[in-house]
């Protein structure tokens, strides 16, 4: 599904690379945690996985296709196979919850009855049907997080990548959100979830991609990345 071979990334203004010699494979339907201390390169890897950045060295294969030399048009089409949940949600505040969820579908083509139904189903799944016509700026942080999750999965992406999805919500909401991700995983979606929360990783023992100083490193048993 997604394969990184000796991937490195160096920002133009910096001398040292933010990532170096990263090798791993995300098989279809897998669930991985992405973790590491601050400044380890998680954000850079997150941006590479979401195709926001392209590697400056090595190869990144998406469905066995090297994305390094693809055109902007091809990259846009590949991004439609990826669902992204940002730590800061990135909802459009002037749109309603339903319109935010419909965005990926409207970008992929005309809005049909089916796509309207998919959005309604997603909102029901995350428990926000009653807020569908409320503007995103008028809902709580937890509700915004669930809207962002609904938006990330409404177009049935092959891979879902989330950055600290439980970082800004209380414990009860965090449990609810993790439940949503594990449910998606059970249905065959590849999930990569970036987190600092070692408790969460211990509670759900999926494989861990652990970064330190821009390189993959084994996670220490008692490491607390916060």
């Amino acid at each position, binding site marked *: 599904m997604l394969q990184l071979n000796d991937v490195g990334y160096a920002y133009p203004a910096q001398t040292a690379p933010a990532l170096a010699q990263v090798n791993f494979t995300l098989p279809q339907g897998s669930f991985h945690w992405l973790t590491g201390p601050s400044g380890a390169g998680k954000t850079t890897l997150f941006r590479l996985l*979401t195709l926001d950045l392209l590697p400056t060295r090595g190869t990144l294969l998406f469905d066995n296709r090297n994305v390094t030399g693809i055109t*902007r048009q091809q990259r846009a089409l590949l*991004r439609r196979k990826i669902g992204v949940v940002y730590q800061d949600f990135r909802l459009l505040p*002037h749109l309603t919850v339903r319109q935010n969820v419909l965005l990926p579908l409207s970008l992929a083509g005309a809005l049909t009855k089916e796509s309207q139904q998919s959005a309604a189903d997603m909102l029901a799944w995350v428990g926000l049907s009653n807020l569908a016509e409320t503007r995103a700026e008028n809902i709580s942080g937890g509700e915004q997080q669930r809207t962002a999750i609904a938006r990330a999965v409404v177009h049935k992406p092959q891979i879902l990548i989330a950055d600290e999805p439980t970082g800004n919500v209380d414990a009860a909401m965090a449990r609810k959100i993790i439940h949503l991700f594990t449910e998606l995983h059970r249905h065959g979606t590849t999930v990569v979830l970036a987190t600092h929360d070692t408790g969460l990783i211990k509670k759900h023992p999926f494989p861990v991609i652990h970064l330190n100083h821009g390189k993959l490193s084994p996670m220490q048993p008692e490491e607390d990345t916060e």
Partner: protein
Amino acid sequence: MMRSLATPSMLTRALNLKQAGIFRLLVLTTCLLCMVIGLGAASTGMLQQVYADWQLSRSHNLTVYLPPDADPAAVNQLLKSLPTIEGVAFAGQVSNTQLQAWLKPLVDDAGNLPLPTVVEVNYRGNASPAPIIDHIQQAFTTAEVDDHRPMLQQVGASVRRLQLAAVGLSMVMLALMALFIVLAVRTGLMTELPTLHLLVQLGATDAALTRNVGLQVLKRTLVGYVFGTAAAAAILAVAAAFSPGLASYTSIPVWLALVVIPLLPPVIATLVPLLLVPRLLRRLT
């Protein structure tokens, strides 16, 4: 039941370039520009008609100046013989009263001047003036015959210069319009940069974003065009109502020029985003 939501309006709602003040000004700017261009085009059209009418009347006309002491009987004889020449449509003497009226603004004491005898000869479009001039000069060897050619050339050149100036001014205004659209689109996209990044991350292609920005620009410039052209038409209609002389020159081609030429700003508004937005997207996202 869910409201239907068409894709373009959805993307327009998301990427709302109106957030930038300069983008909102597009309607007003286009309105003013279309009004000025519309009135300019109509004026140029009317000038062309005035010139064409005048040219037509002058280009088939000879003005014959005979000395003040010319024999009236010989003059009468000339006036009678001229219509017999092939192509002559009219020959008539300009009255002294008319001559004095012409001279009055130029000369203080026009009434006491020895006035020449002036004969106006009109000939048909396909006739040659040479036999007519020969005939006049046989009757009066001292006759001066003016075929208005130098004046026609001088006025023609002036009219062309005026029309060129109008076209040049329109080009400058259209270039300023293009610059304004560049600024408006650039500022609009910069204002909406976070949204732009999100849309790109959600899979928006450059083509879709370019099309959407182009449609937003076109929509605003078309609104400006409608109001600007309507204002120009109203001004011309009012001016024609109060000036019968002007009314006779507000023909269908003039109205067409007033309506069609101001379509140039919306055309530019369609082309500029097509060239600009892909470059901006490559730089910003």
